[in-house]
């Protein structure tokens, strides 16, 4: 291996990237659009959920009850229905996602036996939203119950004694305000790295085949190892630049905490890039058409990163066989490391298992990639 030849190869590849400003622009814009859209768009918590109410009693108590839903930031009463049919239509059309029905004997039962029931019909098409909405509705109703209990009086007008045996004191660690943004942005870094790596590198060798420049390359004294390193170097730099963009944008624009060490962040990112670029290169050597290479590249790098890394969908909720598969997904280790670096402030020693796994992966991929390219024309 000669440094001059390696340099020549890297310069050639850099020029090729540079002279295709369109692709370069996309590679550099991608972090921004992704961060921007997911940073703002990814919000699994609910706010202003449209609610339809059907008050069959229309008393002071039932109105007071509904006011609590109106006052909550989680719900917006968008419709007051006069019968069940209106509720059904409204849910069917997606105009509301929660319907509250107060029975005609709401106050009566509350005064007589102390227990009253209210119906909540929730559109469970989106199961996660439905789940969270039911939790908040329970909390709103719980608040009403407590206040009703405090202000209730017995038949002689004396205040009833209020009993609330257990009170939950909750503390949230690492992401104190339970911001969806803090949860998703560290993962987006992995997603962008996988995208850039897979997309750009999987084309590098196939392009030479399709354009016929491969024959030129084979006739030069450059060795396969030099081809690989020279071709990947510019993409490695682009990847690190993207990672730096992501870090700066995430921390300063979105205010996501970064509690770990920046150096650890770049060590982990460099390892991840080696794996992604190596896989992209391998595919590009094996598949000689550009579109085929790009598609397969996305399938083996982006898809697992998006779905099986725990970036958005929690791994511990997947069926056990799928959980076992995630150990083979290298992005899993990177995402775990990223989340720990951003939110938990873990040090390099806490992350040793993840980093080690990535080192092993990087070594294997680099070895395979180095052997893959042979200088012949068949």
């Amino acid at each position, binding site marked *: 291996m000669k440094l001059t030849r390696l340099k020549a190869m890297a310069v050639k590849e850099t020029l090729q990237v540079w002279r295709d400003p369109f692709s370069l622009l996309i590679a550099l814009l991608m972090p921004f659009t992704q961060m921007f859209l997911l940073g703002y768009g990814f919000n699994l918590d609910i706010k202003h959920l449209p609610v339809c109410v059907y008050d069959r009693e229309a008393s002071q108590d039932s109105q007071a009850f509904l006011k609590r839903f109106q006052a909550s930031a989680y719900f917006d009463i968008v419709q007051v229905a006069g019968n069940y049919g209106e509720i059904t239509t409204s849910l069917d059309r997606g105009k509301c996602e929660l319907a509250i029905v107060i029975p005609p004997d709401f106050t009566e039962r509350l005064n007589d036996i102390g227990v009253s029931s209210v119906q909540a019909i929730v559109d469970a098409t989106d199961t996660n939203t439905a789940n969270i909405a039911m939790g908040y509705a329970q909390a709103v109703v719980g608040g009403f119950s407590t206040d009703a209990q405090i202000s209730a009086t017995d038949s002689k007008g004396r205040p009833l004694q209020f009993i609330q045996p257990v009170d939950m004191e909750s503390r949230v660690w*690492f992401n104190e305000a339970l911001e969806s943004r803090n949860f998703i942005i560290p993962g987006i870094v992995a997603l962008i790295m996988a995208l850039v790596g897979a997309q750009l590198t999987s084309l590098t060798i196939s392009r030479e085949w399709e354009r016929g420049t491969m024959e030129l390359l084979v006739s030069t004294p450059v060795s396969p190892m030099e081809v690989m390193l020279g071709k990947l170097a510019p993409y490695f730099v682009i990847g690190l630049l993207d990672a730096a963009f992501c870090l700066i944008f995430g921390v300063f624009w979105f205010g996501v905490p970064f509690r770990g060490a920046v150096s650890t962040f770049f060590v982990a990112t460099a390892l991840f890039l080696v794996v992604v670029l190596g896989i992209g290169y391998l595919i590009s050597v094996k598949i000689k058409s550009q579109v085929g290479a790009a598609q397969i590249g996305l399938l083996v790098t982006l898809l697992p990163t998006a779905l099986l890394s725990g970036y958005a969908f929690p791994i511990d*909720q997947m069926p056990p066989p799928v959980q076992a598969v995630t150990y083979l997904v290298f992005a899993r280790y990177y995402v775990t490391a990223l989340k720990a670096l951003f939110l938990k402030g873990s040090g390099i020693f806490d992350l040793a298992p993840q980093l080690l796994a990535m080192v092993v992966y990087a070594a294997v991929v680099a070895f395979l990639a180095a052997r893959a390219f042979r200088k012949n024309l068949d």
Partner: protein
Amino acid sequence: MFDRIWCIVIKEFIELKRDKWQRFRLIVPPLVQMLVFGYAATFEVYHVSTVVLDRDQTQESRELLSRFTFTDRFRIVETASTDAQVARAIDRSDAAVALVIHPGFANLLRKGQTAPLQVIVDGTNSNTALIALGYVNLIAGQYSADYAADLVRRGLAGANAKPVTVNLETRPWYNPDLNGRWFFVPGVVGTLTLVVVVNLTASAIVREREIGTLEQLMVSPIRPFELILGKTVPFFLIGLAEVALVAAFGTAWFQVPFVGDPLILLLGTVLFLFSTLGLGILISTVCKTQQQAFASNFFVLNPMFTLSGFAFPISSMPVVLQWLTYLDPLRYYLVVIRGTFIKGVGLDALWPDMLGMAALGIGLLGISILRFRKSLD
């Protein structure tokens, strides 16, 4: 005119027939993605790993904690004996939730006072944390209500204690078991269709341009309009087949019901395909190489995916993003596809979305055909 269009259609199908790779890519990756999505995409919360620290060690504290053992929402993975152990379990992600009962818990309860149950949650995954907190609240609330009722029954709560509560009976419609797959599988059908059709259309046209066969077509007697029709008809048919394949596979494998009218889904799919074909042709007019086409596909499709409501509810987005979602054909298609699969609603509920897709489809196809004609001159 029709035989000229027919020729192009035949040519496209022959190309597809001779390209084994292309056929493979049309069938295998979408099915793999459907499988992975179906199994991996879930926001459900079960068996949350939990560490408990009972520093009271009384009947009451044990009773409360045992309620967490008997639910499939939580799984006790560790019984700690010090606060430091609790902190370490959370730090190392061995547990996502910690339940801590301090000494004196039972004493407070027996005196009729309020006793705290301390809950520590790892907020790294904000969604899991939020839902898990809801379940802790529910279980602690039930225990509390039972304990209060017990006090009242035994006359220990004072002469004039009487529980006053409002119960909330929740009824999830359309998906009574709250099965997350019912939500995701139809969504995957829409998303995959978008990706496959846009990619196919854009790359097929750019490839002809790149290898120079587009010029050959231009010198043939075919008119630009006929060329576009001849090129889009095959992709339209492939798109329909793709929807049928992925939808049939997904529903059969994951047992997702289809309660609506297939004709309405067909209408929605046709309208949606207009948009995707238009988008594909539009991208092909902007790009010179397949690599560029591929990169721009990604650049365009990713935001469409994020803004579609596929996984992230649109109503929780900032208002400006909500406006942007109206430009996303996938947004409307997901409403139609979920409406027909799960809700079983008809045109009376879905017409606004159909209209939205029709408008976008005509707009996109129109612009793309105009641009394509120009790029041929």
